[in-house]
């Protein structure tokens, strides 16, 4: 069966109406005449970037530097920037919130436009983004919205929306979780992860290990249980290190591999898993990660935006690029990788806009997963593009890992992050 685009939009509209996540395009079309333009026509070309989070600010700066007469507009609903890689350290009180947050004002000083608004829809025919406050036309569009947590896919969670404290929710849930951890005096913590791809693969394993370390250091009567549908922790190369750290913490930490979460409830403070029923005081279920509904409605791919992994250009629309967690690439969904691929995507967009530069390279990734509050492991991967016999681009990867946790890797992690924040927000 093949769906044409109109049918697809209809279906997508029905889906969106069911989850109540986004109005349909049809509904938008009827009110579009009443929405004003958010900003006037620029002199040069305009690049609109959806999302102003980790990584994509580097694309904006790269394009502005290489093609200065391009107007670069960043749209995001967040009031300020929060550095995601420091999430875990913030949750357990290792860094304060103000060291990992930045205001967006300094971006204006560097020639970028930041508009705080909620994105509602994308009209590819009119080359226009519809926001809550108005519409923005684009010549080129970069989609870096990140992923949405599909809570509706976890049975029982829609009936208990406040039961879950997910570490991947940006903004206020993160602050709530931080305060819940600080006030934790004992009890059961249950963590579960989805079967499909999700952002920051080692994150949940670091989270449970930090919980175990936190409970032991504070001498609390707590217990952490992790339910994992996978046979062992990911990334696979770091599995021995994670398993060793879990073994060392087995007095407070229980790891159930090959086990899925079946539902939240039906009793209060209980979850059903394939390893039986578990009681919880703090529940951190990471639901399946999906792309934003308005991107699915625009026909850019489901569950993730389909792109050419070399140029980050959408396979459906040559004026659209996508990168980061919502792009369907073979690269890791991590902050380091988002940053390196953001710079490469920036070079590709600048080339299209007329910059005379050489062929951009391929992204790389370094990640320092924490195994306790004072040490971390290390994994690094570099990718390269190779043409196979049939002329198709194949992505090859090679890398190194260190499964021995060391304090120096934690310092390296902080140094990398602070350096990047400086690069993005220095005026």
């Amino acid at each position, binding site marked *: *069966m093949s769906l044409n685009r109109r049918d697809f939009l209809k279906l997508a509209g029905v889906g969106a109406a069911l989850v109540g996540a986004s109005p349909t395009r049809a509904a938008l079309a009827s009110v579009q005449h009443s929405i004003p333009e958010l900003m006037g026509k620029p002199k040069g070309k305009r690049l609109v970037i959806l999302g102003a989070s980790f990584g994509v600010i580097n694309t904006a700066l790269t394009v502005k530097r290489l093609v200065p007469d391009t107007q670069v507009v960043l749209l995001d609903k967040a009031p300020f920037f929060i550095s995601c890689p420091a999430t875990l350290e913030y949750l357990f009180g290792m860094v304060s919130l103000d060291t990992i947050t930045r205001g967006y004002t300094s971006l204006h000083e560097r020639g970028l436009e930041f508009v705080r608004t909620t994105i509602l829809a994308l009209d590819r025919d009119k080359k226009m983004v519809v926001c809550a406050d108005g519409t923005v036309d684009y010549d080129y569009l970069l989609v870096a919205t990140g992923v949405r947590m599909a809570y509706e896919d976890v049975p029982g969670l829609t009936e208990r929306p406040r039961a879950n404290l997910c570490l991947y929710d940006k903004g206020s849930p993160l602050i709530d979780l931080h305060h819940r951890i600080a006030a934790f005096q004992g009890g059961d913590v249950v963590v579960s992860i989805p079967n499909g791809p999700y952002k920051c693969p080692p994150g949940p394993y670091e989270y449970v290990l930090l919980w175990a370390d936190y409970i032991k250091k504070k001498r609390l009567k707590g217990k952490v249980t992790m339910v994992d549908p996978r046979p062992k922790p990911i990334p*696979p190369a770091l599995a021995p290190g994670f*398993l060793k750290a879990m073994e060392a913490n087995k007095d407070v930490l229980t790891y159930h591999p090959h086990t899925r979460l079946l539902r939240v409830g039906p009793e209060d403070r209980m979850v059903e898993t*394939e390893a039986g029923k578990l009681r919880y005081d703090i529940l951190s279920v990471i639901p399946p990660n999906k792309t934003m509904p308005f991107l699915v409605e625009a026909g850019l791919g489901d569950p993730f935006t389909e792109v050419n992994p070399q140029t980050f250009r959408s396979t459906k629309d040559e004026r659209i690029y996508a990168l980061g967690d919502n792009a369907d690439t073979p690269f890791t969904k991590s902050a380091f990788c988002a940053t390196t691929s953001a710079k490469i995507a920036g070079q590709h967009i600048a080339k299209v806009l007329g910059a005379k530069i050489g062929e951009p390279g391929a992204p790389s990734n370094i990640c320092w997963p924490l195994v306790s509050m004072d040490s971390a492991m290390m994994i690094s991967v570099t990718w390269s593009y190779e043409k196979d016999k049939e002329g198709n681009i194949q992505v090859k990867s090679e890398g190194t890992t260190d499964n021995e946790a060391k304090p120096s890797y934690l310092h390296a992690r902080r140094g990398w992050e602070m350096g990047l924040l400086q690069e993005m927000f220095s005026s």
Partner: protein
Amino acid sequence: MLALILGLNMLGGLTPSSRADESEFRSARWIELKKGLFGDRAIQEGPGGLIQLEVPLRPDNAATVPIAVKPAVSQSPDRYVKNLFIVIENNPVPLAGAFHLTPDSGLAELGTNIRVQTHGPVRAIAEMNNGELFMSSKFVKASGGCAIPPPVTATASANLGQMLIRTQGATILNQPNWVQLIITHPNHTGMQYDLFKGFLILAHFIEKITVSYGDNTILTAETGISISEDPNFRFYFIPRAASVLRAEVTDSKGLTFSTSEVTTKLATEVPR
């Protein structure tokens, strides 16, 4: 028949695979595989088909790609899924496993983890008791699953063949009950490098699985190297009386492992 197919495709794996058409999932390789497995018999497929295959488009680890086959109807003595085949088209050994079910399976649902070597379709084919064939296919973008070196863990060989078989809570008579079987086994493909010694690790994989409840066999399967390390299987069965669950597994070196018998606990009353 299975040995023949496995052997045939071992040879087939040496020739470069033809590129599958992503939209239609038709390829010369599939036509050849289909002929070997089912001859000229017609296979019904499509969105309204009898079975549905669930597999992520871009899994996060090519060596453990979660798949689930979900049937639209439950097993009845007149009409039931007799055999389930999982075919990963561009793998060196495309047939990941052949699973044999009975009407007492209750639901012909099956979940496991597979290895995916290159981009290509993954197919689930159900053979009914009357010989009808139904197929569900999904394209999977993953590579290197058969060749990813196994993580170095000292305990791996010590635990070889340890098994866990479990049900979800208490067993309910005369209803489909969920079972999970987890086997600790490296399931070496023969394509993985030992990173320290610098040579290929010989293939060593689970070949045959038999799960029984009391005297009744509830599932038998022949599997190959395309099943992930530490194979795990999720399926259903209908218990008719209180009894014991038992699994027996044979691997390619002829080693036989079995679970200690697990006495199922009957639910005192049937939940709503």
